[in-house]
C-alpha cells in the first residue's frame, strides 16, 4: 500500500497476468485461512502451525500478526519445557493485561497447554517491571545460572543432564529462528516487524539461556548489524538496533566466571563511527552517533579540562577536513554546528543541556575560558571564510558564517572583533541569491540581524 521507488506501469493487466494473480491469491489466502483456523483453536503447540507461519512470512514479512503467532508457537510448543513458563502469559493473543506495569510471568496462564508446561518448568522468575520484552533481564539470568548449578545426588545428576539437553535444544531453535529472518531482513531492511522479532529472540536468550551463552548471541547480533549498515549506511532501524544491542552488551556480565564486571563499549562505538565516516563523509547517521557518544567518552576517560579542549580541537579539525572537500554536504555542517554549540552556549541554568537529553553537565568542555572560546570562534570563522576562496557559490558557507557570528554576539561579544556589519549583510545577500527557495527564512533572518 505504500510503494516506494517502483516505476508506474500501465495498470491494465493481461488476462494471463490476471490469472497469475488469482493463483497467487488463492495460495496466499489458503495459507492464511489455515493459520487462522489454528489460531481460533489456540493450537499454538501444533508444529504444522509453525511451518505455516514460515511459508506466509516468506511471502509477506509485513504481516505482523503472523510474527506474533510464531512467537506464541515458540513459547507454547517449540521451546523446551523449562523455558515455556517464563513467557507463558503471552501464550495467547491479546490478553487485556498490561504489558508494562505487571510482571508478566507471574500472571495466571490463559493457555491450558502452556499452563501444563509451566507447572513442570523450573521456577519462573518474574520479569522486572517495565519489562518491555526488549531489555535484558538480569534477574532472570541470574536465576538460570543458579538453576544450572552443581548437582548433589544421582537424581540431580540426571536432572542436570536433562537441563543441559533442553538448553542445547533452545540454543539450536533460537539459532535457526535468527537464520530464518536473515534473508527476509536483507530483502526488507526497513521492515519494523523483522527487527522487532529479532529483538524478541535476543531478549528470549537473556530469559532462558545461561548468561555466557546469551552474550554470544548478542555479540553475533552486533556483527550482523554491522553487516546491515554496510549494505545501507543510513538505515535508521539498524542504527537504533545497534544502540539497543550495545546497551544490552554493556549491561550484561561479560565473563563466564559470573563476575559482576561490565564493560563500556563507548570507545569501540566511537571508533566505529569514525570508520563509517571514513568510508562516506555524508553519513550523517554516523556523525549523529558520534555526537551522542562524545560526552560519555570524555566522562569515561576521566578527561580533564585540557584533554577536553584538545578533543574539541581535534573534532573541529575532523569536520573541517571534510568541509574542505565537500562544503555542500549538510552532514558535515551539522556536526560542525554541534561542536560550535559546545563553544557558544554555556548552558547557564542548564536548560539547554536538559533539552538535548545530554544530562545536566552536557558540554564537551564546560570550563573553557572566555578567551579560549573567542579564540575557537575566531579561528573557525576565519577558516570558513577561507573556504569561500574555492567555493564562493556554496550557500551553506554563508549560512554558517552568519550563524556563528550571531552566536558570538549572543555571547555578549562585539561581532566587530571578527566581522563588520557590511560583511554580514553581504553574506545575507548571497544567501538570497544562492538559495531562493528559503526567502521567507532569509527575511526572518534579516529582521533578527537588524534587531541586534
Amino acid at each position: 500500500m505504500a510503494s516506494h521507488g517502483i516505476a508506474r506501469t500501465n495498470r491494465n493487466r493481461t488476462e494471463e497476468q490476471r490469472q497469475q494473480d488469482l493463483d497467487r491469491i488463492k495460495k496466499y489466502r489458503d495459507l492464511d485461512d489455515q493459520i487462522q483456523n489454528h489460531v481460533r483453536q489456540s493450537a499454538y503447540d501444533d508444529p504444522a502451525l509453525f511451518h505455516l507461519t514460515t511459508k506466509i512470512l516468506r511471502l509477506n514479512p509485513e504481516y505482523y500478526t503472523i510474527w506474533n503467532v510464531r512467537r506464541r508457537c515458540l513459547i507454547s510448543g517449540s521451546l523446551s519445557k523449562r523455558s515455556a513458563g517464563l513467557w507463558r502469559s503471552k501464550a495467547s493473543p491479546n490478553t487485556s493485561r498490561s504489558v508494562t506495569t505487571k510482571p508478566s510471568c507471574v500472571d495466571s496462564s490463559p493457555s491450558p497447554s502452556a499452563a501444563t508446561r509451566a507447572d513442570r518448568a523450573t521456577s519462573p522468575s518474574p520479569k522486572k517491571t517495565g519489562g518491555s520484552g526488549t531489555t535484558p533481564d538480569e534477574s532472570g539470568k541470574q536465576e538460570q545460572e543458579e538453576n544450572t548449578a552443581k548437582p548433589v545426588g544421582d537424581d540431580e545428576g540426571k536432572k542436570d543432564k536433562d537441563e543441559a539437553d533442553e538448553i542445547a535444544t533452545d540454543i539450536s531453535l533460537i539459532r535457526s529462528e535468527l537464520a530464518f529472518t536473515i534473508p527476509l531482513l536483507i530483502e526488507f531492511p526497513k521492515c519494523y516487524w523483522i527487527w522487532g522479532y529479532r529483538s524478541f529472540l535476543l531478549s528470549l536468550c537473556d530469559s532462558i539461556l545461561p548468561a555466557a551463552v546469551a552474550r554470544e548471541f548478542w555479540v553475533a547480533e552486533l556483527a550482523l548489524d554491522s553487516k546491515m549498515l554496510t549494505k545501507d549506511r543510513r538505515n535508521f532501524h539498524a542504527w537504533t538496533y545497534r544502540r539497543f544491542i550495545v546497551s544490552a552488551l554493556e549491561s550484561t556480565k561479560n565473563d563466564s566466571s559470573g563476575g559482576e564486571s561490565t564493560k563500556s563499549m563507548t570507545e569501540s562505538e566511537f571508533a566505529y563511527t569514525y570508520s563509517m565516516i571514513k568510508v562516506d563523509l555524508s553519513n550523517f547517521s554516523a556523525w549523529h552517533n558520534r555526537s551522542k557518544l562524545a560526552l560519555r567518552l570524555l566522562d569515561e576517560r576521566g578527561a580533564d579540562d585540557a584533554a577536553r579542549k584538545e578533543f574539541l580541537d581535534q573534532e573541529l579539525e575532523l569536520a573541517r577536513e571534510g568541509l574542505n572537500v565537500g562544503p555542500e554536504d549538510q552532514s558535515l555542517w551539522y556536526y560542525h554546528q554541534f561542536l560550535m554549540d559546545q563553544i557558544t552556549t554555556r548552558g547557564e541554568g542548564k536548560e539547554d543541556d536538559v533539552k538535548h537529553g545530554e544530562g545536566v553537565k552536557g558540554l564537551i568542555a564546560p570550563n573553557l575560558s572566555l578567551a579560549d572560546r573567542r579564540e575557537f570562534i575566531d579561528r573557525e570563522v576565519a577558516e570558513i571564510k577561507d573556504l569561500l576562496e574555492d567555493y564562493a557559490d556554496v550557500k551553506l558557507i554563508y549560512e554558517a558564517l552568519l550563524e556563528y557570528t550571531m552566536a558570538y554576539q549572543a555571547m555578549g561579544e562585539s561581532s566587530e572583533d571578527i566581522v563588520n556589519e557590511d560583511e554580514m549583510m553581504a553574506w545575507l545577500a548571497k544567501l538570497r541569491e544562492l538559495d531562493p527557495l528559503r526567502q521567507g527564512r532569509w527575511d526572518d533572518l534579516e529582521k533578527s540581524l537588524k534587531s541586534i
Partner: protein
Amino acid sequence: MAQLQNLPDELQLATAAHVQYIQSLDSRKDEYEYWLTEHLRLNGVYWGLTALHLLKKPEALPRDATIDYVLSCQHENGGFGAAPGHDAHMLYTVSAVQILALIDAFDELEKRGKGKAVVAKFIADLQNRETGTFAGDEWGEEDTRFLYGAFNALSLMGLLHLVDVDKAVDHIKACANFDGGYGLTPGAESHSGQIFTCLAALSIVGRMESVEADKLGKWLSERQLPNGGLNGRPEKQEDVCYSWWVLSSLAMIDRTHWIDRDALFGFILRCQDTEKGGISDRPGNMVDVWHTLFGLTGLSLLGYPGLDAIDPVYCLPKSTTERILGYKK
C-alpha cells in the same frame, strides 16, 4: 493564487481521478497486492477517507459499511487490528479512533463496539510507567510513533487523563537532538517522521516550551531540495510523504513560509497520475493511498485552492477536530 490557475493541465489537481482512485481501492480483490497489504487495511481506510474529506467528497465511501468494518476489527480488550482476525495494535487502534472521529460515529462505538472506555484502557495500559513512552502492543516495541498515537486517540476520546502526561513529555525531551529534531528513541537520529510525532504529541498537551523552534525550523526548511520536494533527513532523496511530516512540523512552529510553497506544489502535482488518480512518492512512480493522502495534506497545509483545511497536529480535517475538541486554530 492566481498563478496556479495558469498552470498546465498536468499541474492541476486531478480531483475527480483521485476520488475515483480511492473509491476503487476496495474493489481490487483480484489483485495480489490487495491481499499482501491486508495488514494495513484499517490504516488504509483512514488514509483514503481523510483524503476524500480533503477533496470535499466525504460521502464517496459508504458510512455504514465503514463503521461495520472498523468495529469488525476490534478485540475484546478494546484494541483494534488491521483487519478482522489480525492482532490488536496501537497503530490500528489509533486509525480506528480517527475514522470514527472523522465520520462522527463515537456513539456507534458505544452501542455496537466495546466502548470508548475499553479502547482507552487498551491504549493507556501500553504506557511504560517508568519511562513514559508507549509500546505498540503486548510484545513491547516502543517508539515515539506509539506515544503520539496514544495522545492523538485519547485526546479525541477525551480520556487523556488516563496516562502519565508528564512522564511522556519527559520522554519526548529525551528524544531531542542537538539539531533541534527528535528521534525514534532517546539517542536516535533526528527524522522528519519522528519530529512530527514528537511535536504533535507536545502540541496536544500544550507543552511546546522545550521546542527549539528556530533551530528545528532551520533543519526542517533544509529538507526542501532544488526540485521542490522534501526529504526526511540530511542527504536523502525527496519523497511526497515528507510533504506532510516536514510541513506539518513547520506549521506547528509557525514557519511554513521557510520553504518555497510553489516549488512544493509543483513537485506534489508532478507526482499525480492525472489519468487514473493517486499520487506517488516521486514523479513517474506507482501511486498508493498513503502518498495520495500525504500529497493532499501537503497541498492543503499550504492553502491549495479547493481543498479542505487539514489540522497539522491530528492529520484530520480541521472541521473534525474543531467539532470534537471545540477549539478553533
